[in-house]
């Protein structure tokens, strides 16, 4: 008993943490889905995009670098070609020949088919302009260059290439001057710098990129995107970092740079690509991809949560059903235990009752004779003994009912021959009945098919009904037991030749504790328990009066053997 009481609060306590447990399970499932489905998606996207970015950077750096070196060769060759051309003229012609009017003009016409050289001039060792061909003849006539830094340079080195400058022409240009082998005169040409503007700006540097040449002093030699003027300070810092070896490509800030020295280190070619604007389309694609992933992740989460919720709910419901079932099983076990306890208690009490009854009887007998017979209290003593015996009988009735009550769980279900079951029960009671000159007549239907039921409980019912019959008849009478099959039902009738059941008792006869027997003889439980048993065996028990008077109790049992019965018939037909 103690064990059962202890389980009840424990079970109710377990209810609350269980809810928390399921909520925790749901959260765990959602986390697992995120970890298994969403995280890999995000990781793949991130890895792909960073891989693409890296490879784009590497490729673009390589391209820029290659482009820079090819342009350097081109520009350096161009400058060298111009120098060599002028050098060749200083060797072919002398100062006097070129100073004569018309000769320089013819030479200019011969070499200027491409329009690269915009003018030509001949200057003597003292800086005087001896001859000039070009659009600025008026402004330059008679000019002396002796003080100009470039003139000193060319006289010292033999050759000179200027930075691009606007000068008084108001047009960007650069000057190439070559001294004659004996340094007695100088041939000077102005080069249209627009020529290599084109060479540089044709570099494919992408949107937001730039390509230009700057001098070592930071002066822009070709107009970049920003136009002429000084280069940006960060560009200069990059050039300084590049050092003497020159050729160099790297990422700095939002730009990818490729720089290379030109013109013997006097100039630098700078190519830069704006990473962000070049990758703009990629970034756009990446944004769309990210949005798609977020949408997919949300969809996965939503679906997963729905699935998990319904799954967990179903598990919870199953768990509840299991708990209910366990509770029922426990209830049945508890009832069985109580039943067994009741039986053993009743059994144990029967023995002392037996002793009490026997001793009381003995005292009564002694009182009947001995000296006490003359005593004043003799009558009262006898009455007291009588009451003791009466109460023993009463207690015995109760213990018998308790024993009967406890047996409801007993017995396996198996195929039962009803005629045999009835017969066995009659045997138990027949001698008692005969001692009261009550005859028990059998009226069995011979071909009853077996019924699957609990024989021991059925016998309990039959015994109760037979006892009732014997009690009703009292002595000198007849009890008729009939078995018969009727449709899908088997009827077992117990008819007695007693006084019958009064009409107003018929309604109450199955009520618990209803009895017409003398006080102490019956508990009023026998018929109630019997009908309860029959109903549990899927049958019923009815009470009434027979046609010739006397009580008639009819127990019925379902025999759902409609499928079994024809099969058996066919078998019979099959075997001769």
């Amino acid at each position: 008993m103690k064990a059962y009481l202890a389980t009840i609060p424990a079970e109710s306590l377990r209810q609350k943490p269980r809810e928390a447990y399921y909520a925790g399970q749901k959260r765990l499932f959602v986390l697992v889905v995120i970890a298994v489905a969403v995280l890999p998606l995000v990781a793949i996207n991130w890895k792909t995009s960073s891989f693409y970015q890296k490879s784009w950077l590497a490729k673009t750096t390589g391209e820029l670098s290659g482009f820079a070196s090819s342009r350097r060769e081109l520009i350096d060759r161009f400058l060298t070609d111009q120098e060599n051309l002028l050098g060749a003229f200083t060797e072919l012609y002398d100062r006097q020949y070129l100073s004569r009017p018309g000769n320089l003009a013819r030479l200019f016409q011969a070499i200027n088919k491409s329009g690269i050289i915009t003018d030509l001039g001949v200057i003597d060792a003292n800086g005087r302009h001896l001859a000039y061909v070009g659009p600025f003849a008026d402004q330059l006539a008679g000019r002396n260059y002796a003080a100009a830094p470039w003139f000193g340079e060319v006289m010292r080195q033999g050759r000179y290439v200027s930075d691009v400058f606007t000068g008084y022409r108001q047009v960007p240009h650069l000057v190439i001057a070559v001294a004659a082998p004996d340094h007695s005169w100088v041939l000077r040409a102005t080069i249209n710098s627009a020529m290599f503007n084109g060479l540089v700006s044709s570099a494919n540097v992408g949107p937001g990129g730039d390509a230009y040449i700057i001098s070592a002093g930071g002066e822009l030699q070709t107009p970049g995107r920003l136009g002429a003027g000084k280069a940006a300070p960060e560009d200069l810092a990059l050039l300084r970092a590049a050092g003497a070896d020159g050729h160099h490509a790297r990422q700095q800030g939002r730009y990818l740079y490729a720089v290379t020295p030109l013109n013997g280190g006097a100039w630098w070619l700078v190519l830069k690509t704006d990473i962000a604007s070049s990758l703009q389309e990629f970034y756009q694609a990446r944004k769309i991809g990210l949005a798609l992933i977020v949408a997919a992740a949300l969809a996965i989460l939503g679906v997963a949560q729905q699935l998990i919720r319904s799954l967990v709910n179903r598990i919870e419901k199953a768990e509840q059903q299991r708990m209910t079932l366990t509770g029922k099983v426990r209830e049945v076990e508890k009832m069985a235990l109580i039943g067994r306890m009741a039986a053993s208690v009743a059994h144990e009490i029967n023995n002392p009752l037996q002793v009490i009854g026997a001793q009381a009887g003995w005292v009564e007998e002694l009182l009947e004779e001995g000296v006490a017979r003359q005593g004043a209290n003799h009558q009262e003593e006898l009455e007291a003994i009588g009451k003791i015996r009466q109460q023993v009988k009463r207690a015995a009735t109760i213990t018998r009912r308790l024993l009967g009550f406890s047996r409801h769980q007993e017995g396996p279900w198996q195929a039962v021959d009803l005629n045999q079951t009835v017969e066995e029960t009659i045997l138990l009671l027949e001698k008692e009945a005969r001692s009261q000159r009550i005859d028990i007549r059998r009226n069995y239907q011979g071909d009853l098919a077996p019924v699957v039921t609990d024989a021991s409980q059925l016998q309990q019912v039959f015994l109760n009904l037979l006892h009732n019959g014997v009690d009703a008849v009292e002595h000198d009478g007849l009890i008729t037991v009939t078995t018969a099959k009727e449709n899908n039902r088997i009827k077992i009738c117990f008819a007695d030749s007693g006084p019958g059941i009064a009409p107003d008792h018929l309604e109450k006869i199955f009520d618990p504790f209803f009895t017409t027997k003398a006080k102490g003889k019956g508990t009023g439980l026998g018929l109630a328990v019997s009908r309860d048993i029959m109903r549990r065996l899927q049958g019923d028990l009815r009470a009434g009066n027979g046609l010739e008077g006397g009580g008639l109790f009819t127990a019925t049992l379902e025999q759902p053997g409609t499928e079994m019965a024809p099969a058996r018939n066919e078998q019979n037909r099959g075997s001769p």
Partner: protein
Amino acid sequence: MTNEIRLLLVDDEKDFLEVTGKRLARRGFAVKIALTCGEAKAILDHEWPEVVVLDVMLPDLNGIQFLKEIKQKWPLLPVILLSGHASVQSGIKGIECGAYDYCLKPVDLEELIERVKIAYQESRAV
């Protein structure tokens, strides 16, 4: 008395056994009592009882087992079983094993005497 019935009473409850023995003796029975199967066997061998009243629960041997032994040796000797266990199954088992009758404890003395007499008369008739 020449027509007194020789009765053997076997039960492990001494208080019941002795008093019932005395009461039955007063009513003209030649009563022998036994607390165990061992004692009962000795009496059966030497005293020739005509009816046996046997408790199903005995300390040294199961009453049903003892009933079988009695029935093997003396098939015609009527045995009335006495049990505190009101199970129909145990009653049927007893009858199947050859018990003549089956009484539930606590049994009324007059009822017991009635059954003993019927058993005795029937065994005589055979």
